[in-house]
């Protein structure tokens, strides 16, 4: 800790110029097409605002590492970076910790955004971050193996079983099943498909009939109908993408980024042979996409919150979201963009499908202790899927531990913090 604080002090003494432009620091990936788009948008911003200079701060791409870094910086009371790019599951944590500013005083046009993306960024009565782009779990399906996409789990099982008879198709369906955040995202989608949820205010309700149905469905896909290979229990996004991209799988659950990478026939055997749709659902539930994506927030210790807000407002303009969609295939968070034809063309996905998928998005539990909740859930889900526990026992144990965590952190039952 002392070391971090020292390192921080050192990093923080960049000096404050008495006059000249205001400096705003902004976290950014070191490499990649996304970082180039952001850099070019920031350059245009500075051309329009000569009084503000935006300095990129290179931060790790891996979500866990970025999170750890932000937490350490903010704990030390750092005023740098001024703007934070947050995974959607971090906003309540940072807000409850008092590390980021409420944005309401800047008058954000929240009505223009998808309501779920706004809801996921609220804590207490305030908005703490503005959704920059949205990630949703989708079902990728092979148009050369079937005529229509399945809409129920039962149809999916049948279609996957049939598709496996085609040459080269080893797997019916692949999803992310390793013990990490991706497993929770997959589970949330099955859970929604069965009409269940994880939290109800401050009460954990995952060990329900719906929870049992969802987890049993996932487990049966591996061991009963065997449409899902058991190796998915060690797979992250990229392993599933490679299997699907090589034509080995008939279906895949994945985020939009995979679509951006698989359209090019040079590296992909399925270019032009697949489409995306919403995840299937059981009769008692509805199609559900786990809501992901990146949000922009302002560091509470920032010396120039107004200037920081100008940067956020600029980056979240419709034309800039459209540009990101074109270049890196990221889905915008503004409703209006889903009305016109440009977005569908930019992403090469029919706009109606896009809209249906994004509207099926459901946030993972909006709570400051999400990461700890998720860790507990990951362990118990993985135990059930590797047949160390029955689904019922795993959910019961997960629920007990998660409830204990909520109670310990003062977030149990009421859903808001008891007192500050």
């Amino acid at each position, binding site marked *: *800790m002392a070391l971090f604080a020292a390192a921080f002090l050192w990093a923080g003494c960049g000096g404050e110029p008495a006059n000249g432009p205001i400096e705003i620091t902004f976290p950014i990936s070191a490499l990649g097409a996304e970082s180039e788009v952001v850099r070019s948008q920031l350059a245009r911003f500075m051309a329009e605002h000569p009084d503000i200079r935006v300095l990129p701060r290179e931060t790790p791409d891996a979500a*866990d590492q970025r999170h*750890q870094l932000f*937490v*350490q910086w903010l*704990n030390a009371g750092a005023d740098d970076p001024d703007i934070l790019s947050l995974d959607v599951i971090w906003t309540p*944590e940072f807000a*409850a*910790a*008092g590390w980021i500013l409420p944005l309401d005083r800047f008058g954000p046009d929240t009505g223009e955004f998808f309501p779920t993306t706004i809801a996921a960024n609220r804590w207490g009565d305030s908005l703490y971050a503005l959704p920059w782009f949205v990630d949703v779990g989708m079902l990728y399906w092979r148009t050369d193996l079937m005529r229509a996409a399945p809409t129920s789990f039962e149809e999916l099982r049948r279609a996957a079983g049939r598709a496996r008879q085609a040459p080269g198709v080893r797997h019916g369906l692949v999803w992310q099943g*390793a*013990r990490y955040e991706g497993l929770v995202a997959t589970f949330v989608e099955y859970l929604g498909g069965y009409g269940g949820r994880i939290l109800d205010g401050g009460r954990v309700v995952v060990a329900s009939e719906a929870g049992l149905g969802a987890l049993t469905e996932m487990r049966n896909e591996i061991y009963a109908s065997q449409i899902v*290979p*058991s*190796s998915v*229990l*060690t797979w992250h996004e990229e392993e599933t993408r490679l299997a699907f991209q090589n034509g080995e799988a008939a279906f895949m659950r994945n985020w939009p980024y995979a679509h951006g990478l698989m359209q090019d026939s040079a590296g992909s055997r399925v270019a032009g042979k697949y489409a995306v749709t919403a995840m299937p659902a059981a009769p008692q539930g509805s199609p559900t996409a786990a809501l992901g994506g990146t949000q922009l927030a302002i560091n509470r210790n920032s010396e120039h919150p107004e200037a920081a807000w100008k940067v956020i407002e600029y980056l979240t303009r419709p034309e800039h979201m459209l540009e990101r969609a074109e270049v890196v295939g990221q889905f915008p968070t503004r409703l209006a963009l889903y009305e016109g034809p440009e977005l569908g063309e930019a992403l090469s996905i029919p706009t109606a499908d896009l809209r249906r998928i994004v509207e099926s998005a459901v946030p993972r539990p909006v709570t*400051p*202790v999400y*990461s*700890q909740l998720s*860790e507990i859930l990951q*362990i*118990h889900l*993985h*135990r059930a899927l*590797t047949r*160390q*526990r029955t689904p019922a026992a795993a959910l019961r144990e997960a629920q007990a531990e998660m409830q204990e965590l909520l109670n310990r*952190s*003062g977030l149990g039952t009421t859903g808001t*913090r008891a007192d*500050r």
Partner: protein
Amino acid sequence: MPTAEPVRGRERQEARLARWLVLPAVGTIVLVALFPLTWTVWESLHLHDLRMPWLGRPFVGADNYIEALGNPRFWSALGHTVFFASVSVGLELALGLGFALAMNRAFRGRGPVRAAILIPWAIPTIVAGLLWRFMFDGQGGIVNAVLVAAGLLDQPRVWFIHPQSAWVPVILADVWKTTPFVALLILAGLQNIDASLYEAARIDGASAWRQFRHVTLPLVKPAILVALIFRTLDAFRVFDLIYALTGGGPGTATEPIALYTFNTLFQTLRFGYGSALSVIVFAITFTLALVYIRLLGADLTGARR
């Protein structure tokens, strides 16, 4: 300590000088060992959760320790660690002794063989972990390919999703990587044995087994003990190999105590509870080290006679 007789001025001066000369060493030890240790103990008596700053940082006494001792995940992690340490170190000692005996014989190309055996030891653990992970991969791993081709498996096995079979690559990788180290330590011990002892044993008509049992083994025992200490303490703190190979999974079926502590400290960011775990691990390894030093010390003095 000064004797009852008055010490001469020069000696006293030398003693004072000596104190100044050891000061940097003592200072370094305090700075790099005692200070962090004390800090960790202090931290372990507090509730300090980086992710829940609204809970403050109150003094909670032994609460963190009580939580650890009542937590099944802690006990299973401890159990995994003991299991891993005993199985892997046992295998390494047996194999290491065998290799050392083989390398101790005069044969052509002994030099290159001794150098070559060190290669696994020279590979960084995290790289070795990834290497073994690829070899045991469920889809394209070479281990499955070989076992299926040899008719030992009907179909490729996904090693890492079974709580028992996930240990196979873990133990094999550790044995592969550290047996050379054990072998070299024991070899050094073997080379210190006076050849005339074997000559005498042969003249007395002792069989090869009796020579091994009554000459080699007692004399190489200190070397074996040194290897045992190093390996047990290392195995007890095993982290990077399992981190790279299984990540502690499936579920938490291969999670050792060091990985659990790491996750608590750096993923969950619970500094108080994580510090308590660190202190417990420290207490265990420190006790182990003390016991071993006792054993070794007795044996060394005994051997000198």
